[in-house]
């Protein structure tokens, strides 16, 4: 177990010039010992590259990887003593479940008694004790992936366990079960876990800290509520949440902040901000308002969908910008074609400039480096 510090950049091509040449733009990051982290982002954002750099399967083209302050950039995965679980189950076909689980220990010359004990414990944890003598090749995909997980967890002394979208091939109802299992294992073993996924629910339920990535950049590191309440980058805003944050073109005038020709905040702009800005508000925080309420804008309702636990309202304002709202089913829901007033200014409203958060709930955002 160790603390992992990254200060690096990576390009698969030699001689990177533009930002697009980099798989990972220069970044600094720390994974604390015993933490549960998720790397979240769309396909191709560099999250698997980052994971493989941490594990040592990929060597960063610049910079260093440190475990507990020791530079391990040049070391192999084996020397770094990490465990990694891949997207598709990797099992050794000719071995039984028990032999599969014992393999990482056997390769390291652990005593047979100790191996037996560890394998038994891990099998119990994964509820595979009854299958130990079955041939691994004949099992279903989720059982195979459990073996892969088990091989990752069987060593006690690992620096970290890395997961690369490990639940992709698993049925939804088993996903929940396995994820709960992982969380439980994290509590029991206090291992550093890093979990790559493109599924926000998976990331937010699994990890204490979620690292949101896009186009080779880690745009925000934070807890689930940080990412939800104060997305520091517009990408985080629309990637997290279902549906994502409403991002509306806004501008500062002498009257205050205007959206679609209506003043939504009657105050002066903070010093140094540009007139044109982007107002972000989550559909959860958009409410139906009485006409002419300060901070509300008139919209035309395009669609009102019953999603079960809530209604999803899709509307457009006078300037054409789309505003979505999540409404409770027990309130009056405007119908498609109606004109409604939506309150978009509140304590959860954020303002963005150049995709970065500059203000949230009327307060300047702290610690936002351009």
């Amino acid at each position: 177990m160790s603390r992992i510090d990254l200060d690096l950049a990576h390009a698969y091509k030699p001689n990177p010039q533009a930002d697009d040449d980099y798989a990972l733009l220069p970044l600094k990051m720390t994974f604390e010992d015993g933490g549960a982290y998720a790397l979240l982002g769309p396909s191709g954002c560099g999250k698997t590259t980052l994971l493989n750099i941490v594990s040592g399967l990929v060597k960063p083209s610049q910079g260093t990887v440190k475990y507990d302050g020791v530079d391990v950039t040049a070391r192999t995965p084996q020397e770094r003593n990490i465990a990694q679980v891949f997207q598709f189950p990797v099992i050794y076909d000719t071995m039984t479940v028990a032999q599969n689980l014992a393999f990482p220990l056997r390769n390291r010359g652990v005593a047979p008694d100790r191996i037996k004990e560890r394998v038994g414990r891990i099998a119990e944890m994964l509820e595979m004790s009854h299958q130990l003598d079955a041939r691994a090749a004949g099992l279903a995909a989720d059982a195979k992936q459990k073996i892969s997980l088990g091989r990752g967890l069987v060593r006690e002394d690992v620096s970290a366990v890395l997961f690369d979208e490990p639940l992709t091939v698993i049925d939804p109802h088993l996903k929940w079960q396995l994820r709960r299992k992982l969380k439980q294992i994290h509590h029991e073993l206090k291992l550093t876990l890093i979990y790559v996924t493109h599924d926000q629910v998976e990331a937010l339920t699994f990890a204490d800290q979620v690292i949101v990535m896009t186009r080779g950049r880690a745009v925000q590191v934070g807890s689930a509520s940080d990412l939800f309440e104060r997305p520091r980058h517009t990408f985080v805003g629309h990637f997290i949440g279902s549906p994502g944050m409403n991002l509306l073109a806004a501008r500062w005038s002498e009257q205050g902040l205007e959206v679609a020709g209506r003043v939504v905040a009657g105050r002066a702009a903070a010093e140094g901000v540009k007139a044109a800005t982007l107002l972000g508000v989550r559909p959860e925080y958009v409410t139906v308002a009485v006409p002419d309420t300060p901070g509300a804008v008139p919209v035309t309702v395009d669609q009102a969908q019953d999603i079960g636990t809530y209604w999803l309202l899709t509307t457009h304002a006078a300037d054409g910008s789309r505003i979505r709202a999540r409404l409770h089913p027990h309130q009056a829901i405007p119908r498609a074609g109606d004109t409604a007033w939506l309150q978009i200014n509140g304590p959860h409203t954020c303002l963005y400039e150049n995709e970065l958060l500059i203000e949230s709930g009327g307060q300047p955002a702290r610690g936002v480096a351009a």
Partner: protein
Amino acid sequence: MKPVNQKAWLMILPVVICVAFSAILPLMTVVNYSVQDIISPDRRVFVGTDWFKQVMRDDDLHAALIRQIGYSLAVLLVEIPLGIALALAMPAKGWRSSAVLVLVAISLLIPWNVVGTIWQIYGRTDIGLLGATLQKLGLDYDYTGNPRHAWLTVLAMDVWHWTPLVALLCYAGLRAIPDAYYQAASIDGASKLAVFRYIQLPKMRGVLMIAVLLRFMDSFMIYTEPFVLTGGGPGNSTTFLSQYLTQKAVGQFDLGPAAAFSLIYFLIILLLCFILYTWMQRVGTVNEGETSHG
């Protein structure tokens, strides 16, 4: 009641005719020969199973059969491991892999009789590169006089000619293994040997079965190369089954025994085919069961 349409019979008629002329009629001719003693084109005597009895008691045939089995086993024992080793050593990516693939495949493009001729000259002790070199090294190599040398030369020729096929099949099998397996093995701390034993070899099982089957059947029917190289000699040391058969049928014109022997040969091949096919099928279904989950 459903009307019965007999037109389908008409549709398969071309196939029936083709198969009749290409397989059934020649086979029946052989059956015909095997139960008669043909003394001259218009004098023949029905002899029943006499030829079969005679052939079954033929010591030369037994010797050829044993020689054949030994040869086929030797071919498999050398070519399969060598092919695997070759495939493992071949580069996986880039122009080097293309270049090596072409180089390796060259021997497969050479016709059988040319292969025999190449080795006939190659092994000559006066002008052949191999023969002369071995002589220079002080080895009394002579494939035309020494039965063991002849046998080894025929084996070496087959290894040179056909190991590339095994190598190419294994190469294809190796390339089909996802990178994640190697990465997982590296993380599990597996040695190179363990990677081979637990990942590469099991994943190559399918292609290896094909390689074994092809090389076994081919070597079991080998004719042209030893015929050109040694003519079956010295003595009978490199006379394999098909050559023995040809000697009987065409050389001595013993049509009856040759026909009887052909049928036995045919049955042996059929039996071995059946065994290998069933084996492959079984391995195939196990593999399928694996991949459908993976």
